[in-house]
């Protein structure tokens, strides 16, 4: 195995795969930066180009592109409050708040450094998990997946403001999210639910227009109303100098970075949960690191830990998601499903063979993820000053550009005008939620997890009746979920004790 590990690296370092990887990184860089245009779509469009490539070249190209998207997506999210990817929305909450305080450099530094750490941990997990991957994935059946969704939903407690009022608002917003997840044709009876007699809503609400509306529109309105640049009146010198500070922040909170990376990897390994979940669970976990109520209130106002958490999880999940794809031919996300098509094109059959006969190829994928992330992060650091300077551009010059990108981004999800309508509707919802002090993240978590929770609950009950409730992993996850809900209450209690 050690031999294959080194062989994998040498495979990627040949000049052709390496050149293809650089090309992939170049494409992924822009796809990530542009809002809406997703990594999955781009992968699908790039598949025809790999027909004549060798497997190692093809994966260097595709994975190089894919592993960069989340990293540069963070950049757009932080600078403009516009989700560069559906998987980089959580980082807006604190990342963009930091940019508004004039700390764009620090936020970017933290995001990039945590992305790198996350990617490395994800890749390491992929390498380490290879011998145990089959039993690991097979432990998680539908009941366990349902409970994982419940654990995810429990994080609403951490994503809400403290106090009874904050909790009620948080769970109501989460409930709205669950309700929105029901829109579309249901997979049990085939009934069209809440589709308002439109064909557009048959497939349910698309995540990208909803996220873009919910997060980008309020920020754009805010920018227009303030009439200044994004960084407002923050002193000029501070903005770009903080990058090193941000990197240091990651190492100051190193265990948090590691824990959030592991959350991301784990969500990635579990097929069926989808990439958009990991960031929110990581963000919820990051808020748990607040020691005092004052610290907790700082989240959403620009706490660097709120950047580190999702930043790390977002990149670590890619290594994780490769595991079920390679070992079972079961993709962990949409992008992985398309990558799977690439496997067949190259004559590789995912399954046990990839862990024995083709092990060097598998390891070359690990190395591609590692190298692509190192190269991207280095490139981003070189561009950092230019990027952060954008937060000093006057709002009236910036807003038209952002608006165009935002609406094109939404429109690409279905190429339908209804995408624009959804963006505007959720823009209004998002704006009023911000004004009234309601948290938006529980809504997104509910929307992302709603379908998963519903389907796996149905399957669990249909398959096992009530017996699934007694499965050991289910019970363990239930305890975790209760712990997650009680943790903020424990935090408040501990803070009171300390004051007394």
């Amino acid at each position: 195995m050690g031999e294959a590990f080194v062989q994998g690296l040498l495979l990627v370092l040949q000049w052709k795969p390496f050149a293809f990887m650089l090309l992939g990184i170049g494409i992924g860089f822009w796809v990530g930066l542009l809002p809406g245009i997703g990594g999955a779509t781009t992968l699908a469009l790039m598949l025809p180009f790999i027909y004549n490539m060798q497997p190692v070249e093809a994966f260097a190209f595709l994975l190089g592109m894919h592993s960069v998207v989340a990293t540069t997506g963070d950049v757009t999210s932080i600078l403009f409050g516009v989700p560069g990817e559906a998987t980089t929305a959580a980082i807006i909450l604190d990342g963009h708040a930091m940019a508004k305080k004039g700390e764009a450099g620090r936020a970017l530094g933290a995001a990039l450094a945590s992305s790198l750490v996350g990617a490395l941990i994800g890749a390491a997990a992929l390498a380490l998990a290879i011998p145990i991957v089959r039993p690991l994935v097979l432990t998680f059946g539908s009941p366990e997946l349902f409970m994982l969704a419940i654990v995810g939903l429990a994080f609403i407690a951490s994503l809400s403001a403290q106090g009874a009022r904050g909790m009620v608002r948080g769970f109501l917003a989460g409930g709205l999210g669950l309700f929105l997840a029901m829109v579309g044709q249901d997979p049990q009876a085939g009934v069209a639910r809440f589709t308002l007699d439109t064909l557009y809503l048959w497939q349910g609400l698309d995540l990208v227009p909803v996220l873009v509306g919910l997060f980008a529109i309020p920020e754009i309105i805010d920018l227009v109303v303030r009439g200044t640049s994004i960084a407002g009146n923050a002193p000029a010198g501070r903005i770009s100098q903080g990058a090193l500070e941000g990197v240091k922040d990651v190492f100051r909170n190193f265990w948090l970075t590691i824990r959030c990376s592991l959350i991301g990897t784990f969500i990635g390994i579990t097929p069926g949960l989808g990439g958009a979940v990991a960031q929110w669970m990581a963000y919820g976990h990051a808020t748990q690191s607040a020691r005092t109520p004052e610290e907790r209130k700082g989240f959403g106002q620009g706490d660097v830990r709120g950047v580190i958490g999702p930043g790390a999880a977002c990149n670590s999940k890619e290594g994780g998601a490769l595991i079920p794809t390679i070992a079972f031919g079961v993709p962990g996300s949409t992008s992985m499903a398309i990558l799977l098509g690439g496997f067949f094109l190259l004559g590789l059959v995912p399954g046990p063979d990839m862990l024995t006969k083709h092990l060097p190829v598998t390891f070359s994928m690990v190395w591609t993820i590692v190298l692509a992330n190192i190269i991207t992060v280095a490139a981003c650091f070189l561009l950092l000053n230019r990027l952060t300077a954008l937060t000093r551009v006057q709002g009236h010059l910036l807003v038209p550009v952002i608006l165009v990108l935002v609406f094109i981004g939404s429109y690409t999800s279905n190429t339908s005008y209804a995408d624009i309508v959804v963006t505007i509707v959720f823009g209004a919802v998002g704006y009023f939620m911000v004004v009234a002090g309601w948290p938006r993240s529980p809504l997104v978590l509910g929307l992302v997890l709603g379908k998963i929770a519903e389907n796996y609950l149905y399957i669990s009950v249909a398959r096992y009746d009530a017996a699934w409730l007694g499965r050991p992993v289910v019970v363990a996850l239930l305890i975790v979920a209760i712990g997650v809900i009680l943790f903020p209450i424990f935090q408040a209690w501990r803070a009171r004790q300390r004051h007394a």
Partner: protein
Amino acid sequence: MKWKLALIGALVVSPMAASAQPTFAGKTVTLIVGYKPGGGYDTTARMLARHLPNHLPGKPTVIVQNMPGGNSIIAANHLYMVAKPDGLTFGTFNRNLPIAQLTGVQGVKFDMQKFAWIGSAANEATILAIRNDLPYKNFDELRKAKQQVVIGSTGPGANTHDFPLLLKELLGVNIKLVSGYSSSADIMLAIERKEVDGRAGSYTSIKPFIDRKLVRPIVRARSMEAGLEQLPIDESFAPTPRAKAIMALRSAPEVIARPYVLPPGTSAEIVKIYRDAFAKAIKDPALVAEATKAQFDLDYTSGEEAVRILKEVLSQPKDIVAEFSKYIKFGE
């Protein structure tokens, strides 16, 4: 949207001369796909977009435009009502749209028989496969199973669901259908961890797992593919002519699994050009090599044959349609 497309159409498209042999030289042909990029319909369309131009007069550029939504009813409505019948737009959509029309699904604005049919690029042989470690070696043994056999599915409207549903409802096979898996690959994983006992689906997608000896094929629907010669057909076990008709109706669209059409009213001349080019493209060694690499089985079905199948589907008596609608919902 309509006016905009019409405008673009008016700018880009000049009506083709009807007298001389039409040529597409220098033109751009749009291929509308009723799904997002990445799936089987899209991948097939993109392969075709690369090879079809070599067989069309004047070698036009063919570009793919994805128009997802409403299980591709949106794309079909567009092709029916908006797209100009000038040979510069053609499209592909959900093979079950005839079923949607038959059962009167809301939002359907097209009449399948009025499209100018080019043909189909593939057929889909649906089979039921069960775990290799189950005691049932063939369909007869499965029918006599005392214990319930759990079959996972993605949801109504998909062949993972409808095919086993009819086996249960019409042939009385002791099946428990568990739906809601997010993809057929997901069901495969559930089979691997013994959460379910088997699944239905296209032979192409299940074949790697048959080769790995995880599952064994038990029964198939009407549509045929090489390698399935020994497998019995569900219809042959039908207890009544009515049950047989319903099973036949469900599987009829599977012969035209990758349908390609031109807008209604396209001139016979252009239709003929497309039909000829399509027939040649599907057998083009370059395309076949590409498809084989991607593990796609291409099978050519002519436009005439597609129209014949449609006629058969859409001319079913009312009582059959009513009973059919009890079991089958349009979806995916």
